[in-house]
């Protein structure tokens, strides 16, 4: 997760510009779909007017910020200090943001990281990431405000992979069911997570329903094909992997 602070020289009268189609396609490939204003507004953090009371932090001789940032220096064994620091920074900013935003989700998510050196969100292995109900609630709250924001679809897809890996069936049913039924999301990733949950509960028929819906949309979707193969044989997904991911690489 990254913060982007944008300052414009002139006063802005209209809305922020969206990427042109070529750029938008590439951004979507990179995990940042921005096709309309709702996608963009889900990413905004409208802040209060008065945010700080330490004007000397960044200016003049002997800037205190240089000493303060020494704690962020690279450490060979960082354990979970990165996520703890990220959580503290997000928590500090949270009361200064005027409306529900992704920040509250990330603050809760960072705070949920508890364990070892591998247990940070920087890990690409979803097995090494913790999720909390608080974080999911915050994400759902924002989703209800921006139900069509593609950026949130993408975030839920990422969360889905983690929840499947963690075998958090209850949460998948609680949140992904809602996304599918209440908000009408038909994303392949959402249905795939629901298919996984159904298979965990040995409801192979329901799992196949979800899989067929995905394959009707994307006939070559590898994870769905793999899951279909297992579901038809009424076999569960192996414990150390989920369809579409091979941790042996």
């Amino acid at each position, binding site marked *: *997760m*990254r*913060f*982007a*602070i*944008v*300052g*414009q*020289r002139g*006063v802005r009268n209209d809305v922020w*510009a969206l990427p*042109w189609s070529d*750029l938008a396609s*590439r*951004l979507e490939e*990179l*995990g*940042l779909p921005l096709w309309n204003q709702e996608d963009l507004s889900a*990413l*905004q*953090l409208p*802040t209060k007017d008065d*945010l*700080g*009371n*330490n004007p000397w*932090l*960044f200016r*003049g*001789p*002997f*800037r*205190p*910020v*240089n*000493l*303060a*940032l*020494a*704690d*962020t*220096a*690279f*450490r*060979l064994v960082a354990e979970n200090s990165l*996520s703890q*620091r*990220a959580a*503290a*920074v*997000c*928590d*500090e*900013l949270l009361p200064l943001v005027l409306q529900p935003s*992704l920040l509250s989700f990330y603050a809760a998510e960072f705070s949920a990281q508890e364990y070892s050196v591998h247990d940070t*969100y920087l890990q*690409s292995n979803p097995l090494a990431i913790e999720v909390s109900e608080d974080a999911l609630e915050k994400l759902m709250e924002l989703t209800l405000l921006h139900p069509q924001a593609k*950026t949130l679809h993408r*975030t839920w897809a990422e969360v889905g992979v983690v929840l499947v890996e963690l075998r958090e069936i209850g949460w998948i049913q609680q949140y992904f069911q809602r996304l599918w039924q209440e908000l009408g999301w038909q994303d392949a990733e959402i249905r795939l997570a629901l298919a996984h949950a159904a298979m965990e509960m040995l409801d192979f028929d329901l799992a196949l329903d979800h899989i067929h819906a995905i394959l009707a949309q994307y006939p070559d979707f590898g994870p769905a094909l793999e899951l279909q193969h297992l579901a038809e044989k009424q076999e569960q997904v192996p414990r150390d992997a989920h369809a579409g991911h091979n941790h042996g*690489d």
Partner: protein
Amino acid sequence: MRTLRLFLYFTALVGLLLGISDSLSLALGGSTADSFLANGFVLLALGLGARFRCVGFVPLRASFLLLGFAGILPLLAGFAPLGAAFAAFFFLPLRAVGACISGILRQQPHHLSLLALASWCGWLLTTAWAPGLPGFLLLWLVAAILQRTLPTPEPEPSPPLAFLPLLPPAFSAAGIVLLFLALSPYLSLFDSGALPQDLRRGASLGMVFFLCWFTFGSGFANTPARKGIAALGSLALGLGWPYFVSNIAQLSSTENYFRWLGDPRLHNLFSFATRSVPEEHPVYVPILTCIGFALPSALTALVLRNAFARNHQDWGPYSLAPLLLGSGVAFLFCGFFAYPLFPYLGWIAGTTLVSAAMFFWWNLSLPKPLRWLGTASLLCCLYFPLHAAPALTFQHPLMDAYVWTPAPKPSNASWPQHDSLQTANYFSLPRYLLRNATPSQLALDRTFLFDDRNSLAAGLEKQGIREAEFLFAAALARNPQKICWVGPPNRQALQALKQRAPMELSVACDPPNLGRLALLNPISGESFPSLSIQPSLTRCEGPFDLVFMQGQAMWEQRHSLLRAEILRQAFLRLKEQGLCVFVASPEDFVPGILPQWIQEFKNIFPTTQVFLLPLAPTK
């Protein structure tokens, strides 16, 4: 009590002078070259003042009052010529301070060591405390109060100027400054370069320095052998610079590094749990600093202590002035010629120090033939520093999850002859390192850009994030035609945009060769075209559609973009609807920083918006 008062006065005064230099550097643009110009300006003014026997024809108290106003110089950042013009007003007050210090030392020459010790303490204090502008003003106040309690030096008629006695101390001081700058890229080769590490480095170097100063230095300073010792010390420094560099290069090999830091005696002494002293351990930096730099530091103490006059008649009244002037001129020289000069700096430092030895020898009270013979021999010694070629390949002995080796220069015909994958410059050693890999990853690009110990390039996993945030900024700026990238640029991200839209790129990166290396493809040798690579935003010609800043290794002062002055400079170089975009991760900050940084944006830009980009590493 009087000695203590004088020590405190010197400490506060040096802190104040460091603050003035820092302020002036920020007003000029904030790059390393700007800091050299600022240091040179301050030292030159002090040195010119130190020639006088009293206060240099300027009222001392009024001068002190004026000096405090140097704190407003950073407000002129972005208007470098105006900042320089305003700084000129501080020349006479600084000269008065130089005359005051010189007057105190003339009355009590033994306070020279006190001044040296206080200078070190002043640096340690401001580095460890980082008090900001309020601290600067406090130092100003303390120095002003303490100065009132000191007796004003009695005015004396100025003696006639003798040129020859000025040369040895002036050349030795200039040579020492040049040598320090020539060795500066290797100072933080093995550590993060964060302020606490700098503090430990400065403290350990200072301890070695003063150990030599108070033992051998002071021991010889009161004997007739003083000038001879100074000559020998200068000669050793001048001829030894290639050895100092090679010594660090040798230390960087894995074998030597672990031989020193994995010594069982260190294990027994400090009881750490790892194979060698870990980087976070308080003794890590002092040990490496002493191995690499103890010898030049001790020799410097020997030369400086013996370059000073034993009494008034020896070098005349100019004991302090030539040292200050010599170092000031050296800083100005490096400031004006700056980055292209660096590859030759070792040779220049070597010849300057050998010349200093020659002048010291010439000033000895020896029979004339012996003086001529010695001077001629030393003249011949100039051959050695001029033809020295120190080893310039530095390994990376530190291991994380990977083992790193210097990336080999590809042997294809298209590779530019002049380009190298490692180019040292002031306080910076940018280089490409190769990461070890499993067989399945061998075909991938595994070269990473490092500056000293810090990795600046995104890993394979994070490259997508770097690209996405830059494209996001470009999208908000509505197809920007003219872009300025502040800090080391990301080549792949720039290429991604260039494939989709034409653009002109300027880079503000300190040192510029770091930016040049970042734009270079280490495999093919192709470089991303840019209009210019400047050391600071002040020197980039706008107006720009987009000024883009990416927070990287911000714990190192040199890489930190968190300066209000940079935002003001960016504002002045943007087109009417141009955007300034700063991106960083939450873990790049600590609590207490980010809200105030957003506030700085709000203070400077009429429209400010914060976005949260939910980007995850590529799986």
